[in-house]
């Protein structure tokens, strides 16, 4: 159980960093386009992390169960 | 009579839930200090939610499903005979027949409303109906027919035939399947109750701000349709998983019967886009409760609704018509005794329509005052749809070419689908081209066009399927002479009515009006008479079906000598569909290929079962 827990914690840390990034983009970047892109990319990154590591989307196309 | 008690009890529970919901909302409003606890529409929403929930629990969801949430043992009541149609039965064949019968009843009801409208429209001026009665009739006809078109083929024929065709014992989620059917009665009750609250005034499209200002029947309309959308989504989800995971061994994607392919594409459309209708109606409900999505003076925009609404409602026409195409191709292949022509192109056509369906919605809005730059892209995307549609015709025409056409009633209806849709498709070009659409938008030309596509394309296919599967479903055969009489009567009545209907549209008669310009009197009288002719044809059908179900001669297991799996079991099939799991060895349409086999039943008990091997033909 240790390995998946480690993965979880690392993902959580990246999520925290991305959330802060997003927030800083919103508060400290003046240029509309850069701010919008920064926020969007952070959000997409967070979504991908959750969908891949937390929701295990890869299990959909894995033929047999392995846990 | 357990079934009667169970339905009555569930109805009672539903009513209790409805009033309880009204009360709970009132208490909450009182607690939060609103001056009027009986706010009206918000109470109805609460009542609807709780009422539908308790109705479902009462009809059998509690015993089969709810108990599991609390770690209790679930149970199922298996009733014999007709009673199983009135319980929470998870057999896909029972559910298919439940859907089919329910929606045929709704179809005839909505058809009667159409007769009422045609009676009013036989002459200019108001004769039978006031303007408000006409609007209510028209709206109810529209939404009931949309419901029939969405659910009759998918819910009825799809549920019945798809698991059989792919050699499965049932759908992937049988309880979910039963749930989707038992959500329908509240929808029917909700829609049929609208006349008592003033009638639907806004047609089935419910454009705001009209639908925000109108009477409270709109709330029932919205709630019913949101609930109906839920059945559509859950049903579609079930079909997709079933088709992906429940196919018999050997039934590869390249061997899938074309109807199953069409159901697969349709289910994706229903799964993805139905949320649009639900979201649009949800926003209407909220606007009625004081929100401001569509109120221009406080920053809303009425066109937002049209975008969200057509985001579903255009794909919805493919939800309606793709299974019709699938059925037509399926039946044409079997009754031409030939392999389906250009099978891969037909599959590509279904997938192509699935792909394009989401990017064409704004062609319903060419005159809506949306910005000009949107017209071009949507015109282009809309015209592109005609390319995959053309492939369906290629497949159909190639299949009948040099075939051995067995003109049984199902085949006649299937050929009529091709005939009618050719007309519906050609008139569609006029509506896709902006310069012609400006004039034709919201006229009887549009009415004629979508009746040609939906009635001509789907309802004809529905009748084809009913005549095709009737012996399988009931184990009895209908009168072929009456069926052919019904076909010709309906075919002539339909084409007379709707072909003529193009003309007043071009001449300048708009839709959804009880009264029109007197110069169109002769034309409209003719259309009305043709419509009554069309309406009367269904009496033959009803008589034939009811009589044959009770008294008809016993049908063979495979009266059409067809190769696909559903015909390789008894009529009607046993609960588990096949005496032994089938193994698929070849394509479903290999007529005329020496030695070809579609499927075998390796571990079948040899005695008393006529099915294996599923060669069909001679």
């Amino acid at each position, binding site marked *: 159980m240790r390995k998946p827990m480690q993965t*979880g914690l690392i993902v959580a840390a990246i999520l925290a960093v991305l959330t802060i990034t997003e927030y800083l983009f919103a508060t400290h970047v003046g240029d509309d386009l850069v701010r919008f892109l920064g926020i969007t990319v952070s959000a997409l990154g967070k979504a991908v992390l959750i969908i891949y590591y937390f929701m295990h989307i890869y299990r959909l196309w894995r033929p047999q169960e392995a846990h | 009579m357990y079934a009667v008690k169970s339905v009555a009890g569930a109805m009672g529970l539903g009513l209790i839930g409805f009033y309880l919901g009204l009360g709970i909302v009132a208490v909450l409003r009182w607690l939060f200090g609103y001056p009027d606890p009986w706010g009206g529409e918000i109470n109805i929403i609460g009542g609807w939610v709780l009422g539908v929930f308790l109705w479902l629990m009462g009809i059998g969801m509690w015993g089969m499903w709810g108990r599991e949430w609390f770690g209790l043992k679930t149970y199922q*009541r298996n009733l014999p005979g007709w009673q199983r149609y009135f319980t929470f039965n998870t057999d896909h064949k029972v559910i298919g027949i439940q859907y089919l019968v329910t929606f045929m009843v709704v179809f005839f009801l909505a058809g009667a409303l159409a007769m009422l409208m045609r009676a009013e429209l036989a002459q200019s001026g108001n004769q039978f109906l006031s303007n408000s009665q006409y609007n209510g009739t028209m709206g109810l006809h529209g939404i009931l027919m949309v419901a029939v078109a969405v659910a009759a083929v998918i819910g009825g024929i799809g549920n019945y035939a798809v698991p059989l065709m792919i050699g499965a014992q049932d759908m992937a989620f049988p309880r979910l399947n039963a749930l989707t059917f038992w959500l329908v009665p509240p929808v029917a009750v909700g829609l049929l109750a609208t006349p008592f609250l003033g009638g639907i005034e806004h047609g089935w499209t419910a454009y705001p701000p009209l639908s925000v200002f109108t009477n409270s029947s709109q709330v029932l309309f919205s709630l019913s349709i949101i609930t109906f959308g839920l059945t559509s989504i859950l049903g579609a989800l079930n079909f997709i998983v079933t088709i992906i995971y429940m196919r018999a061994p050997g039934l590869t994607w390249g061997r899938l019967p074309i109807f199953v392919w069409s159901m697969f594409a349709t289910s994706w459309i229903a799964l993805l886009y139905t949320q649009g209708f639900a979201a649009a109606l949800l926003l209407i409900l909220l606007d009625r409760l004081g929100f401001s999505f569509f109120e221009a003076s406080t920053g809303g925009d009425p066109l937002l609704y049209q975008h969200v609404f057509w985001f579903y409602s255009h794909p919805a026409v493919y939800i309606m018509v793709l299974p019709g195409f699938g059925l037509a191709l399926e039946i044409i292949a079997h009754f031409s005794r030939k392999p389906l022509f250009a099978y891969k192109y037909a599959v590509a056509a279904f997938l192509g329509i699935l792909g394009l369906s989401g990017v064409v919605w704004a062609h319903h809005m060419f005159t809506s005052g949306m910005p000009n730059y949107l017209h071009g892209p949507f015109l282009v995307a809309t015209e592109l749809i005609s390319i995959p549609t053309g492939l369906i015709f290629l497949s159909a025409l190639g299949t009948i070419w040099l075939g051995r056409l067995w003109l049984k009633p199902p085949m006649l209806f299937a050929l009529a689908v091709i005939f009618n849709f050719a007309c519906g498709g050609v008139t569609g070009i006029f509506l896709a081209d902006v310069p012609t659409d400006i004039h034709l938008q919201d006229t009887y030309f549009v009415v004629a066009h979508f009746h040609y596509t939906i009635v001509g394309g789907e309802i004809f296919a529905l009748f084809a399927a009913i005549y095709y599967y009737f012996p399988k479903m009931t184990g009895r055969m209908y009168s072929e002479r009456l069926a052919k009489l019904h076909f010709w009567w309906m075919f002539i009545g339909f084409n007379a009515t709707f072909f003529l209907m193009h003309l007043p549209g071009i001449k300048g008669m708009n839709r959804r009006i009880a009264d029109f310009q007197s110069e169109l009197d002769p034309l409209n009288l003719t259309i009305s008479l043709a419509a009554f002719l069309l309406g009367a044809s269904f009496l033959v059908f009803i008589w034939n079906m009811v009589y044959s179900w009770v008294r008809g001669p016993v049908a063979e297991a495979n009266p059409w000598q067809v190769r696909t799996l559903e015909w390789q079991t008894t009529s009607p099939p046993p609960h588990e569909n096949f005496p032994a799991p089938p193994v698929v060895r070849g394509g479903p349409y290999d007529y005329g290929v020496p030695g070809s086999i579609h499927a075998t039943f390796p571990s079948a008990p040899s005695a008393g079962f006529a099915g294996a091997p599923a060669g069909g033909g001679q």
Partner: protein
Amino acid sequence: MALATAHHEAAHAPAHNHLAINRAGLWLFFFSETILFGLLLSARFYLEGIHREELNQALGLLITVILLLSSVTAYTAETAIEHDNKKVASWYLFFTIVLGLIFAGGVAYEWSIAHFHRSESFGSIFFTMTGIHATHVITGVFMLILVWAQALRGRYSSKNPWAVSAVVMYWHFVDVVWVFYYPALYLTK
């Protein structure tokens, strides 16, 4: 009248397929829901562009962090069940429920202090988006409670993890929605 009572099998598919079927069904449900949430998100930009009203930024960031944290606890609970660590699983399900309730409370507080009204278009958008999302959160909390009650009785294990997996996946999905809703409502300008 035959009243047969029998435990009902969810599907007649081969047994090893059950989990895959259930999982596919759940994902399709998510796809469908994505369209609903996506339409609301599009409606937000359609009506308002990137304009937004002033909101309580600290509160927004706080509830976002709480929801992300609840995803981590949910993940822990699922991982624990898959490794037959029933005690940890129950505890982390409980933490998830608590965090979910705090999130819902945060949204309710935000509603009570919002300086705009639902009859303005940004108010309509804000209350609808957060409202629909909060409805999903509350539903998720209900389901988590049901699953937690079963988990306390030790009903789930690595052989039978589906209910926990399903509710946790649903919870993550609700989280993913918020990942997009938070910047769309709080961070644009």
